Structure formats: structure tokens, C-alpha cells
């Protein structure tokens, strides 16, 4: 489903802040896999997602999603293949638009937009049913602006929006990092449920080793723009947080492991 | 909020109700913008009506200023029409057009409109034909260019600095270009869009022309000192189209007094108040012109004014 071949990304090439965000990275992810990505700050995790989403253009290498070469394709033109949830709860929806309107925008991701009324009565019934079905308590707030929702509600909304319209892959960029523990757990549970029910291929960047260990079926560890560990659960059935920490420190080249990573 | 707004609106209407239609003779005057020349016109009109009122007695005078804004001018015109004055007076073309558009019945007298026919305010100068007539501030161009010829008999090429965005200037320059060949002049144009461009425009004329002429253009006149400097540096005489500018350094000008224009317009207003119809009152131009000279400035620009010219001057500036 996802084929990344020899991708390199350098920011500010030649300048004072030159950074090799990704260094000749190659990766294969099969359809239906749920991959978690961990690493220290600056390891290249977000850049990796950016390359897949189309926010970042690599200077060499290719990216293929479901067989299509999307390396040079703009983000908006890949949206039919790629669904995303951002770290900042406010980034995934429009403050001024209502919940229903946000869902309507997401509903047409990857499709053509015409002149028919958006978020009409039938659409809203559909949204309400979907929200109730997923256990997200927003059905009664369809007409409220997204700005009035809490962080957790907004991330739940972003998640529902990401899965409302079909996509080939789902990218989650530390999407529970900005939430309190209870909300984070709720959103994570929703994530797992949605990925499982829709059989999505998902990539989840997380700062939490606990999440990496408990969620999904493969862990990727990045450092210095490279993949230093690739741990499919089939080969590492008894993966623990301590184990990960050890691996991290061993090949991490002295990069610090933060409390958040270890305990989160 | 609701009761407050309602009270506010009610108060507004009540206060302004008192300014509804009047029975006595009212003269409603409006100017497009604050400007010394236009302000002088206003003073001329009001002084004239006070000192030589019409037979029906001194009228009540109302005045508004559009602050340079077309939409405000439109609202002023509508407001006046609603008050049904005996005569409306427009100082400058844009206001005259707004008023003419707002009413075909109430008599309108304009002042300081350079080209009323081009502005479609009148059908012809002799028989305006509608409800509009007035006094034009068309410069006495023939007298002015004759002055240049007399002051500089050898001059052939004249440069004109003006703003093509000002209707009055464009009307003047068109007339100058038609008239110039008959007087043996060739014309070079140096257009400016704003006052800060004036010095540069003046410099482009150096070496190309024998003298510079500045028409009654608001943009250029407001930055006239810049041209004086160019003239002194390059020994290039600068003539003007109005007499006030001579005090500021122009070599000489044949012009009229905007106050006198105002008084002439005031006389016309009195005639209308006494019953004359604008359709048959011919458009007037200012007849009284004066010659102002500034020999000191001329010398700085490398020109010695002929004695006869100086002798004719109504005022010799700088002595």
C-alpha cells in the first residue's frame, strides 16, 4: 500500500539552519497495517508523515500510495488517498464552521464539489447517526461552531472527519499529545475502533512508548532521519516499554529519553 | 440595545425633521472639497448676495462640503433636493453633476466648472437649455499665452506640467494644444499623478522646452515651489495660470480672482431668485483679468521681463 524508496529531505539546504530531516529512508507498509512511529524530537517523524501527505517534497526518492506515484503531487490532490489528523486539535477543523459544516467539508474529500446545498437535512441525519454509532457525543451539537468544542471533542471530530470519506491511508500526527489522559485514552480507543472497522492502513506518530507498545501491529523507531528499528509484532510478540527504551538508548547515540516518552 | 437604538433613531429623525422643506427663499450651496480657490468662490457668492440682494430680499444660505467624496456629494445633492430650495449652487464639476442628476426642476448655478459642455451640464454656452447655468473658470488661455509670447518672443517650445486625473486640467490642456500652433508654439506634456511627482516631471522638461506653463491644476499648484526650484536651477522660466502662484515664484500670470468669480456667480444667483430661468441665461466666463508679474523670480530663472509688460501689471510682486 505504501512504498517509500530512498527518500531524503533537507530543510534550508546550504543555509545556517540546514537540517537533514530524512536520510535515504525506505519503507514498505502493507494494506491494513497499523504502524506506530516513535523517536526523539527532530528524528524525522513528522517529516515522514509530511512526505506521505504532500506537505513536504523530497529532494530524491519516490513515494507510492496504492500503486500511484505521488511524490510530486500536491497535498490537495492526494487528499482522496490520504486522510490526516493533526496534533493541534484546532488544526483539523474550522473554528467558524459548525460541526455539521466541518463534516460536510470532509465528506467531499477526494470527490468533486458541486453546487448542491452542503450539510442539508439528509446529510445531518447521516452525521448524527454516524456520531452516535461511534459513541462521539456531538450529534446534538451539529450546529455549534467547532470553536466551542473541547480539545478532546475536536480531536474526536477530526477523527470522524478523517474517516467519513474513503481513503487509502490514515496519518495520525501525535493526535492525542495535546489532550488530558482521559480524553487521550478515549480518542485512542476511538482511533483503534475506526481503523479496525474500516480496515484502514494507518501510521500513527506518538511520543508515548506505552502507546507504541499497546497500539497497532508494528513499531518504527526513527532517529536522525533514519529508521533505526523496525519491529513488527509478529516478530516481537512480547515487546515492552522497557525493551523499547533499551533499544532506543542502545542505537540512539545518546539521545535523551524523556519522561513523557517512557511514562506516557 | 434595542430600546437604545430605537431612541437614537427617533432622536435623529426628530432633530432633522426641523430641516424639512422651507417656504422662504433658500440658496443651498455645496462645494466638493476645501480649497483656497473654492473657498474664495463661496465667500464671493455670499458677500454678493448680502451686499446686493435680489428684489425678494436677502436669502437664507445653506452650505455643505463633500470633503472630496463622491458618495457624500451625492447625498448632499439629494438632501438639498428634498429641501426644495429656490436655487442650488455647485462649486466645482463633480458636485454640479451630482446636483444636475438629482433634479431637473430646481435651478442650479455652478461656479468654477471649467468645461460645462463636456460635463454635459449645458447644451451650449449661449442657451444652456435645462435647469443649469453658471460661471465657468476657464482660464483666459489666449491672454496667457500671448503673455508668454510677449515676455519671451523667441520661445517656441512650451512644457506643461499637469495631472491628467483632473478634469479641469485636461480640458485646459486640450484647448492649449489646439491653440498653440496658431501662436507658433509646440507643446510638451509632463504628466504627474501626485504632488510628490512634480519636481521630477519638471526636470524631464529641462533642455526640451523654452518655458514651463502650469495651468490651474490642484495637484501641481500645491507643489509649485518644486517647479520654482527646477526653474531657478535650469534657468527655465515658469509661467502660471493663476495670479496667486506668482507670489509663490511664477514669473508672471494673467488670471482672475476666484473671489471675483464668486461675486459674478452671486449676481447670477440673484437674477435666478428674481425669476430668470437658467435655460436662457448664458454661461459666463470671468471677464476681469489682471496681470501679475514677479521680476525677481524671473531674473533667478534667467529671464528679464520687458519693461512694457511690467508696466501693465496690476501688481508687481517682490518689490
Amino acid at each position, binding site marked *: 500500500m505504501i512504498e517509500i524508496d530512498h527518500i531524503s529531505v533537507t530543510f534550508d539546504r546550504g543555509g545556517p539552519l540546514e537540517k537533514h530531516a530524512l536520510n535515504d529512508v525506505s519503507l514498505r507498509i502493507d494494506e491494513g497495517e497499523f504502524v506506530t512511529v516513535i523517536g526523539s524530537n527532530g528524528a524525522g517523524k513528522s517529516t515522514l508523515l509530511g512526505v506521505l*501527505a504532500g506537505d513536504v517534497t523530497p529532494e530524491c526518492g519516490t513515494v507510492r500510495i496504492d500503486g500511484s506515484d505521488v511524490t510530486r503531487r*500536491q497535498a*490537495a*490532490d492526494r*487528499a*482522496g488517498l490520504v*486522510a490526516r489528523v*493533526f496534533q493541534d486539535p484546532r*488544526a483539523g*477543523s*474550522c*473554528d*467558524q*464552521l*459548525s460541526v455539521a*459544516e466541518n463534516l*460536510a*467539508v*470532509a465528506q*467531499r474529500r*477526494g470527490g468533486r*464539489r*458541486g*453546487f*448542491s*446545498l*452542503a450539510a442539508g437535512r439528509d446529510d445531518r441525519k447521516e452525521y448524527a447517526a454516524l456520531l452516535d454509532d461511534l459513541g462521539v457525543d456531538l450529534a446534538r451539537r451539529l450546529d455549534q461552531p467547532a470553536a466551542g468544542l473541547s480539545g478532546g471533542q475536536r480531536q474526536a471530530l477530526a477523527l470522524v472527519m478523517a474517516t467519513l470519506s474513503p481513503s487509502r491511508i490514515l496519518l495520525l500526527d501525535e493526535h492525542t499529545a495535546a489532550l488530558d489522559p482521559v480524553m487521550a485514552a478515549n480518542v485512542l480507543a476511538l482511533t483503534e475502533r475506526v481503523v479496525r472497522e474500516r480496515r484502514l492502513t494507518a501510521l500513527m506518530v506518538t511520543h508515548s512508548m506505552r502507546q507504541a507498545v499497546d497500539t497497532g501491529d508494528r513499531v518504527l523507531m526513527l532517529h536522525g532521519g533514519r529508521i533505526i528499528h523496525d519491529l513488527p509484532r509478529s516478530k516481537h510478540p512480547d515487546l515492552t516499554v522497557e525493551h523499547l527504551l533499551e533499544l532506543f538508548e542502545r542505537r540512539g547515540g545518546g539521545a535523551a529519553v524523556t519522561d513523557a516518552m517512557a511514562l506516557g | *440595545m434595542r430600546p437604545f437604538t430605537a431612541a437614537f433613531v427617533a432622536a*435623529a429623525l426628530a*432633530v*432633522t*425633521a426641523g*430641516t*424639512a*422643506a422651507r417656504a422662504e427663499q433658500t440658496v443651498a450651496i455645496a462645494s466638493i472639497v476645501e480649497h483656497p480657490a473654492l473657498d474664495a468662490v463661496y465667500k464671493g457668492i455670499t458677500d454678493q448676495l448680502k451686499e446686493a440682494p435680489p428684489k425678494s430680499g436677502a436669502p437664507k444660505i*445653506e452650505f455643505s462640503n463633500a*470633503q*472630496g467624496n*463622491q*458618495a*457624500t456629494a*451625492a*447625498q*448632499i445633492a*439629494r*438632501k438639498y*433636493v*428634498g*429641501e426644495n430650495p429656490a436655487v442650488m449652487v455647485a462649486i466645482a*464639476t463633480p458636485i454640479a*453633476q*451630482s446636483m444636475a*442628476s438629482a433634479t431637473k426642476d430646481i435651478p442650479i448655478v455652478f461656479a468654477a466648472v471649467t468645461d460645462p459642455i463636456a*460635463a*454635459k*451640464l449645458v447644451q451650449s454656452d449661449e442657451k444652456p437649455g435645462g435647469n443649469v447655468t453658471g460661471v465657468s473658470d476657464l482660464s483666459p488661455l489666449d491672454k496667457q499665452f500671448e503673455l508668454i509670447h510677449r515676455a519671451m518672443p523667441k520661445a517656441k517650445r512650451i512644457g506643461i506640467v499637469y495631472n*491628467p*486625473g483632473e478634469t479641469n486640467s*485636461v480640458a485646459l490642456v486640450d484647448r492649449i494644444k489646439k491653440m498653440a500652433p496658431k501662436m507658433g508654439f509646440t507643446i510638451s506634456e509632463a504628466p504627474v*499623478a501626485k504632488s510628490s511627482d512634480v519636481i521630477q516631471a519638471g526636470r524631464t522638461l529641462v533642455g526640451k522646452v523654452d518655458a514651463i506653463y502650469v495651468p490651474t491644476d490642484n495637484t501641481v499648484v500645491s507643489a509649485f515651489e518644486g517647479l520654482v526650484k527646477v526653474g531657478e536651477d535650469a534657468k527655465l522660466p515658469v509661467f502660471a495660470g493663476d495670479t496667486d502662484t506668482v507670489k509663490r515664484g511664477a514669473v508672471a500670470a494673467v488670471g482672475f480672482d476666484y473671489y471675483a468669480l464668486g461675486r459674478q456667480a452671486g449676481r447670477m444667483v440673484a437674477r435666478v431668485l428674481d425669476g430668470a430661468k437658467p435655460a436662457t441665461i448664458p454661461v459666463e466666463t470671468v471677464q476681469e483679468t489682471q496681470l501679475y508679474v514677479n521680476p525677481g523670480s524671473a531674473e533667478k530663472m534667467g529671464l528679464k521681463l520687458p519693461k512694457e509688460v511690467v508696466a501693465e501689471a496690476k501688481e508687481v510682486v517682490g518689490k
Partner: protein
Amino acid sequence: MSVIALLGAVEIGLIFGLASLGVWITFRVLDFPDLTVDGSFATGGAVAATLITGGLDPFAATVIAVAAGVLAGIVTAWMNTRFGILHLLAGILTMIALYSVNLRIMGRPNVPLLGESTVFSLVDDIGVPAFWAEPAALLVLTVLVTAALNRYLLSETGLALRAAGANPRMARANGIRTERCIIIGVALGNALVALAGALFAQSQQSADVSMGIGTIVVGLASVIIGETLVPGPLRRSIVAATAACVVGSIVYRLVVNFALNLDFIGLRASDLNLVTALLVLAALGLPTYRRRRAARAAAAAAAAAAPRAAA
């Protein structure tokens, strides 16, 4: 004020209401402050006036004037999206260029329309006095234009436009081509402003190269006045927002009318701008001031009651 003056304010308010809708689309919906409007307003008037004096049917002339506005908007948007020029600067550049373009179109700084047939000639012949007929016709037109705009903004494409302005990153992640939205939105905004310019020139029966100066200021003032007048719960609705722009524009003109009539208290004609600004400030500021005072009074009363309850 007289009925004629009142209706005159309404008529001019409706015309500038169209312009303030255009300003609202770029400024509020797209988050793209567009200064082109000072130029495109005059372009609308210039194109319409020149074509009408050239013999073209006034309705066709008005449509072409709107097309000119679309072009002006596309130029600004293109500078911003294609060349990365800051939106404010792009608008300023187009506005400056339009000054010369407008002069070229008209051939001179002022084109009078007195005696020509305009879109208003139709209603002038109905038999109702023009000062009633023209505002009524404009009201019908404004309602139609606003309804069409609302319908567009509530459609899927219109919603995409709103998303592009509200959160461009999210919009792109949802497949919306934000650059195209900017071009469409800025073109649409300037189309409305050019329409207003064409109507204003025909209403005043003259087009002047300087007629657009101040459009952005009046447009923004109208938008903000309208927003302040809309009650809280309605504020998010598109229908209320567009209506508010038009209402705000009319209120602004009424304030100017009111200011024009204040000479009896010793104010001079030259004080008009200051008086208008103060009146607008009073109209907007006083309700807020009273609300805050009421809130403080309520808080004080609650604080006074609490110790007694606790004691």
C-alpha cells in the same frame, strides 16, 4: 430629514451595500484583505460609463463592467498565489495600476452620463417618482444578489471557499485547492464592487477617475457596523452576515445624512468627517459600554448578596 434625503441615503446605501458584500467576501470569508477595491469600484464605473456613452445598452455595459471587476480580482489573486506577493501589497499594486487603466478606458478623468440612458431609465419611466422607484429597484436587485451569494456560500463549493479562508491547511488536507479558492473569491468580491461602481456612476450620471477612493474604508465600516448590529446567536449564519453588510452600509449613509444636518449646533461643513466618525463610534460603542456596565452591576449585586448568604 426629508423623504428625498432619506431615500437618497437608502439608495446610496444599497449600492455601497453591494460593495461592502464584496469587501466582506475577501476580508472576512477568505481572510484576504483586498485593497484592489478602491480601483475596481472606479473601473466598474469607468467601463459602464464609457460603453454607455459609446452607445451600448446600459444593461450590457453593466455586465461588462462586472467582468472587468472579475479581471481586476484575478490579477490581484494571481500575484498573490503565483508570485507569492503579500495579499495587501498585491491589492495595492492592482489598485495603483487601475488608476491609469481607468483613465485609459475613459479617455479623460470624468465621463458625464447626463442625458444618456442608464439601467435606471427603465424605472424612471414607470410613473412612480424616481426617488422612490430607484431605491425600490435597487432593493430588489440587492435582495437577488444577496440570495444568490448566500446560496453559493451554502453549497459544497461555497463551503470549500469558506474552509479555505478559515483554515487553509485543513482545507488542503480535505482536497480543497486553496489557491483556486483565493482566485475565485477575490474575483467574486471585485465583481460585486465593480457592479456597485457601475450602478453608482449610472445613479449619479457621471463617472470620475477618483470615485473609488475610500471604498475599502466605507466597505469595512459597513461590514463592522453590520456585524455589531446582528444579535449574538445569529452571528454565525451566512444569511445574517450578508444581510448585515447591506444594513450596515445603509446605516452608515444615514449617519452621514444625520451629520450633514447638524449645522444648527454650530458645527461647520468641514467638520463632516469628524462628526461622522464620532457618530459611528457612538452607535457602536455605546451598546457595548452599556452591556459592560450592566454586567458589572450584576456582578456587584451578586457580590453584595453573597456575604449575607454566607453569614
